[in-house]
């Protein structure tokens, strides 16, 4: 596993016939094709390791990851704008809800940036941010359902993100699946 980390530019899945492959940068395009067909990261540690381990280190921001980052970016922008607006204009109405909005916005920003950055630290930050997001949407969603008197004001996470087509609920789940599939190779010391 150790040496495998150093060959990340080695495009692992060239045989998949992606028409876009010649057009762009190093490992991304070829792998995007295979990403939804479950690369054998876990299945064959012996044979598959040298091929797939590089893909697990630095490729969270290619293929489906780009879509994930784009959606996170949209949420980061809209949540930040909305929280900013709420806090600037009507903070006193519901400080808790609006602080929660701001917190959610911050989580989306951190998730977006860390998903886009390569490396182990960014990976850990992504996992933390996405987990916080998942807990947030579940807790706030549940509170807004069961205690609607104290949580009457809208946040991104209210009612499990119903105001946003439940994407806030779906996003962390997809995010965790993606992060798991592109987790960095284990360091064996």
């Amino acid at each position: 596993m150790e040496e495998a980390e150093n060959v990340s530019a080695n495009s692992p899945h060239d045989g998949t016939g992606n028409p876009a492959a010649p057009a762009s940068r190093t490992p991304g395009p070829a792998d995007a094709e295979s990403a939804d067909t479950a690369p054998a990261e876990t299945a064959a540690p012996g044979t598959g390791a040298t091929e797939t381990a590089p893909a697990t280190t630095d490729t969270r921001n290619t293929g489906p990851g780009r879509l994930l980052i784009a959606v996170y970016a949209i949420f980061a922008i809209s949540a930040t704008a909305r929280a900013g607006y709420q806090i600037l204009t009507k903070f006193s109405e519901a400080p808790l809800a609006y602080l929660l909005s701001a917190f959610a916005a911050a989580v989306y920003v951190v998730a977006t940036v860390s998903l886009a950055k390569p490396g182990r630290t960014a990976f850990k930050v992504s996992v933390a941010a996405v987990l916080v997001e998942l807990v947030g949407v579940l807790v706030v969603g549940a509170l807004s359902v069961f205690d609607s008197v104290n949580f009457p004001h809208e946040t991104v996470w209210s009612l499990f993100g119903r105001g946003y087509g439940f994407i806030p609920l779906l996003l962390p789940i997809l995010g965790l699946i993606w992060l798991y599939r592109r987790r960095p190779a284990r360091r064996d010391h």
Partner: protein
Amino acid sequence: MDAYFYIILVVGLLSSIICVVAGLLKKAPNDTTILSVAAVELALLVYLGGSIVRVASGERIAGESWEFWGYLATALILPIGAVYWSILERTRWSNFVLAAVGVTALVMAARMNQIWY
């Protein structure tokens, strides 16, 4: 909901459908998908132009005007950002990124309509 919203509704949905289909067909972003996103941008520019004319001719925005312009400005940036992001890596996934533009523009146009009236 006014004509501007319906224009963006039609153009945005068409663009998203085109991009999703292209993505499902495993195509990289091409002229068709990028031009469809450009059409969304154009529709938003029409909204911008129309709104400026309406405000200039004395019409009042019912909600917060800076919120309206904020939405519009953000919506105008989205297609450009998405196209840039999709050109950096030309895979079918970038078509799904492009597909997000139409739907997002649609939601934002609905919100802008709410603010205006």
